[in-house]
């Protein structure tokens, strides 16, 4: 299923357009396009330009540091890395089953993370495109524009995110980069006072999440782009509970093909590397995972909200399940392949997380005191969870002295690498091919990448203020045109633009 536009036959004769950095995504990346003199697209690539090296520099560290250390991969979803590493470390101490309190507190923390991350993405990063149009005035197409024209909606977004962060803080001590997981369990549960504070506002969060799902559907129904923008077939993968329900925290691996047929199901995730391999390409720091049985050309897949809505048999909270049924009905109960459907799926998950938090806050185990389980020591551990952006793998080997000797992480955005490239190529071919490039057209490419909510470095983003530079370079390497957006949002055009 690999697109023809991955590598041009004669790149030297083509001119290069770079969208660098991509804006309103987490971290730093760029898109390059190679065009001929008629502006026909011959090559389109999403490049990840950062190199982190976590897998290397945790070698030599004691395993109990790992959940706290690796969460620094990300400033948006550190809880995901903390929990995935925590699950792997549980295996190292033989704690295959946690105490009910420890598992429920972890799940609560994870739901808080899902709520805050999805709210951040939709309201702060994606809604400007959806509310104002992909090629609307750039000065308006940002969170400040949303605040100015839809203040109630913007406030809901801020408060939903804040609530999710407060859930995390109550458990981990800090909104970002706290400590919670310890080998075999948790270092605290909720106190009754903390639980009661969170209970006070959860009803409002559920209601706002429900409203956001409805809003997103209305916007997509009214959008001329929705049925055609970035639509391409792919495989999908996620964790799935034993009964087929969506489960963000635990379960077996399920993969479906573009028609919805099972590729594998309920696979023990500790054996993930019997089913998934990673390919390296010379032009990106990010690997390209694929399903081994399908091969590297056809085995790539999508993960994240869209994948989870396509793989799950049902959601176990009533309002979100009702929304999921409507989502699947819109695709005639088949697989939903539209890139923009990621937004709709993401908000259904936000609602599911809010309902999940409400349920867990009513569970007496959430304030329990039995926090740590133990078992027989092991030298290898694998932890997999569904992070906001998709399936997240952490795999560690340690020696007899408790020191990490090998680590392998496949983060959610890595799983989506080929799919994001595919989205870029599909949009480039259908919207940019043969057209005179404008800022609005180039934003179509960013909209496609943004739909995946990629976490490119995981740690940095400068909301609405990231500068953008696009250069048009001829076959000889001469800059023939240049467009620059400054940190103040002002555009300058021409070869000598600052």
């Amino acid at each position: 299923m690999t697109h023809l536009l991955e590598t041009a036959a004669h790149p030297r004769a083509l001119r290069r357009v770079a969208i660098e950095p991509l804006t309103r995504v987490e971290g730093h990346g760029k898109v390059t396009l190679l065009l001929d003199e008629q502006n026909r697209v011959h090559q389109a690539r999403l490049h990840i330009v950062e190199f982190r090296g976590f897998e290397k520099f945790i070698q030599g560290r004691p395993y109990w540091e790992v959940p706290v250390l690796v969460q620094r991969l990300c400033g948006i979803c550190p809880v995901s890395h903390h929990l995935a590493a925590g699950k792997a470390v549980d295996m190292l101490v033989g704690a295959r089953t946690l105490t009910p309190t420890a598992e429920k507190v972890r799940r609560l923390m994870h739901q808080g993370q899902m709520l805050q991350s999805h709210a951040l993405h939709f309201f702060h990063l994606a809604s400007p495109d959806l509310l104002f149009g992909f090629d609307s005035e750039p000065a308006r197409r940002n969170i400040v524009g949303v605040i100015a024209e839809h203040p109630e909606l913007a406030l809901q977004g801020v408060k939903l995110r804040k609530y999710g962060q407060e859930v995390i803080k109550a458990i981990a001590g800090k909104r970002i980069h706290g400590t919670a997981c310890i080998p075999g369990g948790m270092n605290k549960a909720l106190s009754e006072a903390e639980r009661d504070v969170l209970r006070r506002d959860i009803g409002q969060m559920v209601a706002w999440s429900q409203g956001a799902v409805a809003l997103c559907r209305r916007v997509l129904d009214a959008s001329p782009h929705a049925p055609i923008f970035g639509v391409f077939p792919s495989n999908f993968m996620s964790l799935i509970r034993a009964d087929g329900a969506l489960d963000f925290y635990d379960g077996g691996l399920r993969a479906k093909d573009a028609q919805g047929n099972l590729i594998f199901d309920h696979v023990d995730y500790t054996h993930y590397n019997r089913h998934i391999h990673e390919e390296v390409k010379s032009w990106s720091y990010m690997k390209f995972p694929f399903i081994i049985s399908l091969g590297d050309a056809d085995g790539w897949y999508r993960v994240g909200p869209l994948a989870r809505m396509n793989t799950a048999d049902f959601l176990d909270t009533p309002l979100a399940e009702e929304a999921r049924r409507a989502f699947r009905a819109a695709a005639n109960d088949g697989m939903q392949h539209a890139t923009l459907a990621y937004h709709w799926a993401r908000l259904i998950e936000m609602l599911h997380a809010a309902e999940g938090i409400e349920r867990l806050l009513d569970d007496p185990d959430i304030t329990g005191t039995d926090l740590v389980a133990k078992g027989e020591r092991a030298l290898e551990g694998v932890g997999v969870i569904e992070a906001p952006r998709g399936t997240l793998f952490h795999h560690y080997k340690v020696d007899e002295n408790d020191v990490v000797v090998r680590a392998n992480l496949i983060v959610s955005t890595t799983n989506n690498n080929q799919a994001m490239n595919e989205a870029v190529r599909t949009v480039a071919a259908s919207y940019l091919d043969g057209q005179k490039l404008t800022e609005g057209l180039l934003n179509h490419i960013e909209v496609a990448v943004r739909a995946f909510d990629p976490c490119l470095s995981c740690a940095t983003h400068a909301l609405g203020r990231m500068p953008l530079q696009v250069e048009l370079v001829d076959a000889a390497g001469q800059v023939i045109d240049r467009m620059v957006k400054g940190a103040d949002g002002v555009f300058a055009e021409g070869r000598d633009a600052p």
Partner: protein
Amino acid sequence: MSPDIRKTFHLDGVEIPFREGQTVFDAAMAAGIYIPHLCHNPDFEPHSSCRLCTVIVNGRPFASCTQPAVAGQDVKSDTPELNDMRRSLTEMLLVEGNHYCPACEKSGNCRLQATAYALGVQYNHYPQFFPHRDVDASHPEIILDRDRCILCGLCVRISRRVDRKNVFAMTGRGITTTIVIDSPSGLLVDSRVSRDDEAVQHCPVGALMMKGEAFKVPIGERRYDTSPISEDSVAKFQAREVRLHG
């Protein structure tokens, strides 16, 4: 002179009483005045190697942890010059090792970190050394991370004088100085150290730690979460004074 006559000296203009034989540091802390320090633990003999507790006594610098209190002397401690020096010393300690507080299990309980906060260290003026010293995780219950060691010598002194084992020693000179273990292999597992040794209980940083304890105390309940080191040290010192001297 009658022993009943109350002896005092002046510290930053405040009259500080002291007992015969007390150091400037002990008298100040007993009076509720914090003097930053790292290598000194009041429960053990002072060493005066970190120089953070340096004060100006009658115009000359001395380490307050070993400087005897003398009636009538004029001592300066909380001055911009001395605090600048303490900040610089602390920053140098931070760059000489690999002190990655975000992932360190000692964070929140670490005297180096808490002292840096107390002194207002916001960033390092000096380039990081990024040393690569061996981690000794060979012992089933104890781990030694030399990259976090600030060479305060507490483990060396306590092992020698309290535990009577001489498990730890320092070797090398200057920047190459490091902790070594007295065992045939040079590893902790082959030494006489045990988890009950006093020497492994008092490391001020995350160099010498007990395995299996990491991150068990939640954020908000760690030692320096509840009170800054200036208040915590004084309170503990005063409680010790009451315990020992009534």
